[in-house]
């Protein structure tokens, strides 16, 4: 585990050199997804010798979410080619986080498909290895992609604050059961669910079930199933998954780094720590290859 002071001293020269050598502003790219929806992403071209990094934001967020945005900036500054898409969630050119009360028809499978699309898009734009850095639920989506027919260019998955959509207080079993029954009945109407941080998730049973169907056991199973190395960074104060989660991940054979004092979002001074660790993991991934 790295100390915060050390990581700051390490990152600072990287940022300074990036300010001199790299463009500060990203290129907004737009792509028509196979479903016909238009999706957008920030692209920053980096050094050719460094792997391209695909950053996946959290549940219903956008690429503008601070944790992802800062990390993208930091990696781009560090010379990495970065691509930060905003998952469309069925909305062309979605620009804002989607509220819980919005009509949710999108599914996790669609999200994973979009990750696959952007991995391919990135591979075409910058040939070479691709590393996915996901945050929060985006980590799970990235892990699902990595465990199921990922692109050959995918070299590594770095999961920040790896979580599922489960909450201890959720009437999860009942809702899952009801959702399954609704699907079985062919119902597509919008239903109020409790999902993750959404106390009122207005969505179709298919949408709800696609996200809520993944539990921790599934995550550990996926980690073992992943085709590429999975490295996990957790916040020392992120208690969403319980105290034993880190150990369970390690027990599943994953390399897990914990940033002491950081929360789920690595706010404040911990953004430097998470950047340092990410860079460190990217570099370690390069050496392994």
């Amino acid at each position, binding site marked *: 585990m790295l100390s915060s002071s050390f990581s700051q001293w390490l990152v600072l020269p990287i940022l300074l050199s990036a300010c001199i050598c790299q463009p500060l502003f990203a290129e907004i790219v737009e792509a028509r997804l196979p479903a016909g*929806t238009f999706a957008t992403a920030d692209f920053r071209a980096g050094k050719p010798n460094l792997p391209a990094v695909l950053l996946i934001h959290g549940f219903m967020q956008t690429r503008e979410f601070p944790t992802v945005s800062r990390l993208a900036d930091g990696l781009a500054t560090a010379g990495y080619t970065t691509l930060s898409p905003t998952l469309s969630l069925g909305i*062309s050119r979605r*620009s804002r986080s*989607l509220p819980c009360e919005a*009509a949710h028809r999108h599914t996790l499978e669609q999200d994973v498909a979009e990750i696959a699309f952007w991995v391919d898009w990135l591979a075409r734009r910058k040939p070479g290895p691709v590393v996915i850095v996901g945050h929060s639920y985006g980590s799970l989506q990235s892990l699902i992609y990595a465990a199921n027919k990922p692109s050959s260019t995918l070299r590594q998955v770095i999961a920040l604050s790896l979580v599922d959509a489960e909450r201890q207080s959720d009437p999860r079993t009942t809702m899952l059961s009801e959702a399954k029954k609704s699907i079985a009945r062919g119902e597509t109407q919008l239903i109020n669910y409790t999902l993750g941080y959404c106390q009122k998730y207005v969505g179709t049973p298919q949408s709800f079930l696609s996200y809520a169907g993944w539990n921790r056991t599934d995550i550990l199973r996926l980690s073992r199933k992943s085709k590429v190395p999975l490295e996990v960074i957790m916040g020392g104060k992120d208690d969403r998954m319980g105290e034993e989660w880190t150990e369970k991940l390690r027990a599943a054979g994953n390399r897990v780094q914990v940033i002491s004092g950081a929360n789920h979002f690595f706010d404040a001074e911990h953004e430097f720590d998470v950047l340092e660790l990410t860079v460190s993991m990217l570099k370690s991934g390069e050496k392994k290859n």
Partner: protein
Amino acid sequence: MSFFSPHRYGPVSLARLTFFSLAGVTLLLVVTSSVFFANISRLERNFAASNEQFAHQELTEALTLMENHMLTVAKALAGWDETRQQLEDPTYYAYWRNSRVLSSGLLPDTTDAIELYDVNGRTLSKESREGEATMPAHIGQDNLRLALARENGHEHFILFFPIFSDTGLRHRIGYGGLKLDFNAELRTLRRFLYVDMASVHLTAQDTQMLSLDQAIRHLAFKTQPSAEILAFKSLIYRVMYQVAAIVLIGILLAYFFVVLLVAKPLRRLSEHIDAMRTGRGGLLSEAYRGPVPVAELENVRISLNDYQSKLDHMHVNLANKNEELWKLAHHDPLTGIFNRRAFEEDWGALTRPALTSINVAFLLFDCDHFKTINDTYGHHVGDQVLQGIAEALYVALRTGDRLYRMGGDEFATILYETDIALATRVAERCIDAVTAHDFAAYGMFEPVRISIGIAHSHDAASAALLHKHADLAMYHAKRPGSAKVAVYAESLAHSSKAMFSSPETAAVYAAIANPDLLEMHYQKIVLLPAAEVDYFEALVRIRYLDSLLHPASIFSVVEAKRLEIEFDLAVLARIRQDLTGGKLPVGTGISINISGMSIVTAQIIDKLLALGEFLDRYKLVIEITETSLITQISHASANLNRLRKAGFVIALDDFGSGYSSLRYLSTMPVDVIKFDISMVHCLDGEDRQRVIVENLAKLISAAGFKLVAEGIESIETLQRVTELGFTHAQGFYLGRPEALKR
């Protein structure tokens, strides 16, 4: 006369004057307030006109703001991910329109309806909606503008706008429609200072879509009064009402205090002064007590009380003085009894017409021979005699009977509820009392007697004659040989009538008024022993109603009526005519008889001195009686000396007929002594009287006096007086009195 002159309407009370003054102030306040309120109203109208302009400007600006606001909302709505989501997949459009978009925070609270349309302008809604919140099912390109419409009496802003899928606005994917409540929206956009938003309405027909430019012309509204003006007006009104209330309270308090502190005390002072004024000189029972709050009125009250106190003191003094004056006015200073004034007042009360039945006796007292007493003993003794008589009568009368001195030696009393017998007994008691009085203590040797006349009356009519009847009775009592008390009876009236209502009395009064009625007869006084006429004694007669009155008749009236001075003046006037007319031979003279009262009268002396112009042709002799000379010896002597110095000769008449005294004779300023006829007749006898008279004549002659013998009626008497040394003689033997003929 001015309008407010007190003579016009009479004096006004202070309270009423204060009331009118304060009412005037109130009226002035009302008028001022009315003018003020009129100015406020005019100011309000000016502000209203200005507000109208501001309101129109305000509404125009609000519509511009409204347009900008709706465009902003439309832009936000068009750029919202979930809007595009619906246009790409309208499966859950109803949820979006009915719930999601309304809770998104993108729409204002004034939103009445929202609708999305596909790229062909058809609504995404699969169900039709009625009412205000309805939106058209289809829109065209001409609808893409902001409009104002009236629906079912309610105004709305309606905006249809395109929605693009990209930020470059190249890919239009549909349209949005937004309907806002016009009035509520305007209220949320800005605060309206001039427009009364409740009154704003569109004058267009329902469903007519108006552009903003058109809407401005079709908007009707009312202005609301400026808050500042309302506040200012409210403040002014409040201040005015407060001032009015304060002024009215002040006026009421002023009126109350003026009435309480000024008018009421002033009224009390006025009433007090009125009480003093109408008190007819009586003293007020009490002063104005209790302090007055106003210093000036307190000073007036104190001054008034001081004045009243002094007035009371003066009143008491005046009452005392009045009493003293009344006493002086109603009492005789010599005797201390009531005087004639008191008698007349009592007499007036007695004889007033209201009295119909009285039973009263009137007693008139007169001293016998008082004149002689006076002449003999002088006034001092005479006064003492009068005091003594008064004292005796007062003691003799009953308690309560009033004794009056009527004048001279005449006294009177009125006896009420008295009959003749009782009155007679009282009169006799008076006679006894006077008789018993010790007059010798005054140096008198003769007794003093009084005569009393009594008159009695049973009714008021005859009471008026009581005095006259008592007078007649009293004169009857004075007659020699009569009882000293006489009661009036009809028989007395007839016998006395001649005295009191005789032609002689009328003749005397007529002669005084017209001296031409006097006829002077002159009797020779001859110079002895030659018996040549030296001068004439003027003896008066009155020719009246074809008869000639002689001195006996004349002087009884003159003395009774106290007409000596007036009659002597008439005689002197008549003698002056005779002297002027030259009836007397030049070189002779006239001897003129002058009464005792006249000799001390300056007017007579002046008339006599005026006759001095005839002294160069005539000898003028003034004859006076011994009594008259003795009575006022000092004054009379001074006048006689003046006449002597002027050339007159003074003769003492009727010497020997009274209380003649040789001591007096020696000091009298006389030149001639006329022996009374009674003295001259004594010379015809052989007794001691003759001797005395003869020697007396010699004695007087030896003293240097010239002697005139009166009553010479024979040659023998003439010879005798000639022998005795008489220088002059007078009598029928020498010549009767006769009128002179020129």
